[in-house]
């Protein structure tokens, strides 16, 4: 019903959050409500596809501090609905409408 959000069968709505300092790469904005277009021909949104979309559409600087090869860089935890993505197929995880995906840089200070 809203005028400022696009929803259709061709996009997946996600809540993305960046924390632990990773938000600096995203204009210091921690929470992003986004609609991710599906690749033509694919019916589902996979984490692998999301990472590329985030890098190309949200990331503002230093991509090497976010990604390494096809995955996130070492030291970044990925949480899908408050669950370590290691428990749900990592790059191959399928994302549903309104899922929350958190990217968090692990801290070492004390």
């Amino acid at each position, binding site marked *: 019903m809203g005028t400022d959000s696009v929803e259709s069968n061709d996009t997946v709505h996600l809540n993305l959050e960046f924390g632990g300092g990773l938000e600096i790469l995203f204009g210091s904005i*921690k929470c992003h409500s986004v609609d991710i277009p599906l690749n033509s021909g694919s019916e589902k949104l996979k984490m692998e596809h999301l990472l590329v979309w985030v890098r190309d559409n949200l990331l503002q600087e230093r991509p090497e501090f976010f990604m390494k090869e096809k995955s996130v860089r070492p030291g970044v935890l990925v949480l899908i609905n408050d669950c370590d993505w290691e428990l749900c197929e990592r790059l191959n995880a399928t994302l549903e409408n309104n899922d929350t995906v958190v990217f968090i840089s692990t801290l070492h200070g*004390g």
Partner: protein
Amino acid sequence: LSGGQHYLDREMINRYSRQLLVPAFGVQGQLNLLKSSILVVGAGGLGSSAALYLAAAGIGCLGIVDHDNVELNNLHRQIIHSESSIGNSKVNSAATACNAINSMLKVVKHEVQLTANNSVDLINQYDVIVDATDNVPTRYLISDTCVALGKPLVSGAALGMDGQLTVYNFNGGPCYRCLFPVPPPQGACQRCSDSGVLGVVPGIIGAFQALEAIKIASGVGDPLSKRMLILDGFSTSIRVVKLRNRNPDCSVCRDGSQITEREIQELNYESFTGSSLSDKSP
């Protein structure tokens, strides 16, 4: 190093009376705690509140490891120290504060930097290990040593207004390397001394570390194993998320071929992580 406490004397019953009244904790929880020994590695922002609350709670023996001296710019967060300790060793300052609140506590001062050469000997003396350090190579070293020796590890970290907490190597849960097999690239992570921290944030996380260590040592409650607490102090939002299981292929903790004490001594943690074990400025 643990004491052989098998009963509560009159002073203990008075001192710990409010804890003895907690149904889930009670006399057995206190007796277990009094028999336990806990090592806090780092007497900085995390270690200040962790060590003070462990001392007050009535563990049997508290070990403190640090090789630094107290500086004025520590005092916005390191509440175990005071202005009169500036220039003196953090271990001495922290031990004095812990014994001031609980003279029945045995405190062991380890005024050294934890290295691959001494970590096995140090950690082997304690039941539960609290990682309150501030750098990546020491975090790998402590976790690897805890795997080799079968010790539960309560790990906390803080930076800016963010904090994180989890328990590694406990009851079949993952170790630090199961989560982070590869260290982060240089520049992607920073220490408090480089990029700042709001003082009370490590205070909160350090107190949570004391809680987890007390729960493990007393056998009361469900420790934060296979889970991580993530604190965003700016918005006061907190998540407790579900972490992965132990990685059966972990290079360090896999069944039947866990890392050995000798292998730890042969590893170069500084070159592995590209970062220094010491938090002193170069």
